[in-house]
């Protein structure tokens, strides 16, 4: 079984690796690139814990082969903060919008993608956008509040 040479940009850094043709982008991020912030919760695209952005599109990295990332730009939770936390990250801490924290990276990546498309979403829009990100701890209440508070701050800053 020959491996496939994959050359991508991950969080702005060029990376190259050899992928098993069956290997998912999620497994490559975690096992080859040591980017374990992206999580597996289901492996079937139903929980969103593995959310990443590929060439500007939010996807489940468990539903994409590593080989398909060749030549693409991948953004993960590890690339979200610069010198300072992204407002979403800060608001999630302040609003206690996480308990166990396992779904948090995926939700943050997904929420950031939402606010880039729609800086002023309604609660309903936030809920439907995040419907593919399961959280079993919070009942979503504080997550929605944190996203809205971050959105308001980002609108104010813009």
């Amino acid at each position, binding site marked *: 079984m020959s491996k496939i040479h994959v050359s991508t940009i991950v969080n702005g850094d060029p990376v190259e690796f050899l992928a098993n043709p069956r290997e998912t982008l999620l497994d490559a991020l975690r096992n080859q690139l040591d980017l374990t912030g992206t999580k597996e919760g289901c492996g079937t695209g139903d929980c969103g814990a593995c959310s990443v952005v590929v060439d500007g599109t939010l996807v*489940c990295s468990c*539903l994409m082969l590593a080989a398909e990332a060749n030549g693409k730009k991948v953004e993960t939770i590890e690339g979200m903060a610069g010198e300072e936390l992204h407002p979403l990250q800060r608001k999630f801490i302040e609003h206690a919008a996480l308990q166990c924290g396992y779904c948090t990276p995926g939700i943050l990546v997904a929420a950031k993608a939402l606010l880039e498309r729609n800086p002023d979403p309604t609660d309903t829009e936030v809920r439907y956008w995040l419907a593919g*990100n399961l959280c079993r701890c919070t009942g979503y209440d504080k997550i929605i509040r944190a996203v809205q508070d971050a959105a308001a701050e980002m609108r104010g800053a813009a």
Partner: protein
Amino acid sequence: MRYHTPTSFADAAVIAAAATGTLRFLAGGTDVLVQMRAGVVQPDDLIDLKHIPGVDEIEQTPDGGWKIGIAVPGIVLGAHDALVRDWPGVVEGMNLVGSTQVQGRATLAGNLCNGSPAADSVPGLIAAGATVTVTGPNGSREVPVEQVPAGPGRTNLAKGEVVSRITLPPRGKNGGDCYLRFIPRTEMDIAVVGCAVSLRLDGDRIVEARVALGAVAPTVILSDAAAKAIIGTTLDDAALAALTKAAQAEAKPISDKRGTKEFRIEVAGVLARRAAKIAYDRAKGLTK
């Protein structure tokens, strides 16, 4: 597993025709990768179609119809204003498939070729009268969408054949379509019942209609009886009652983990009624 990245459908067909083991095509991958992860399918050859030029494009045809590349994901369909204006029911069907994340990958062609009787985008395509171009080692042919699925997990495509394009007819004037599905939650479920209605008006009167029912038979049903129930009517209460009855009579569901037979039959009528009303209002230009 061999991972192929052909740059033309002709090449893809050649690879597919030569494959001796388990073969899968990769468009959005949202079904294939799940099956691989679960060990249900272990392909020997996987043909990634996304390196073929044009597969990610949406193009209007000279007659006003639409050609949609097989790798166009749901999120791109949903953002295409002109397509949404013409065929809101087709697009809303696709946009109901999975989460935002899945929308970033999942495609009409993949949803169709996965062969699920509950596929959300298929009733809308059938109601719209869409066709697909099927490319094989010996050339291409045009096939109505309703002739593609053969049963759960199966299609009527021959070995070496691959869907290479989806074509929607011109919407024309005074037309409207709609797709509704029933799921227990608000998102993330497989349709328990689905229904698409496409119709055209002359004044207040329905002059053309196609009604497709999903998840109530091994393949999506294109129901003449349900269409006849509303053609020639103004979608008054009597027509809606006739439509309900026709849709329920047409449904031949099973009971399974997602719903009972009785429930599916009942709700098929409810959805047909509701979808027809929305399609009608859209045709009148009352709603988007």
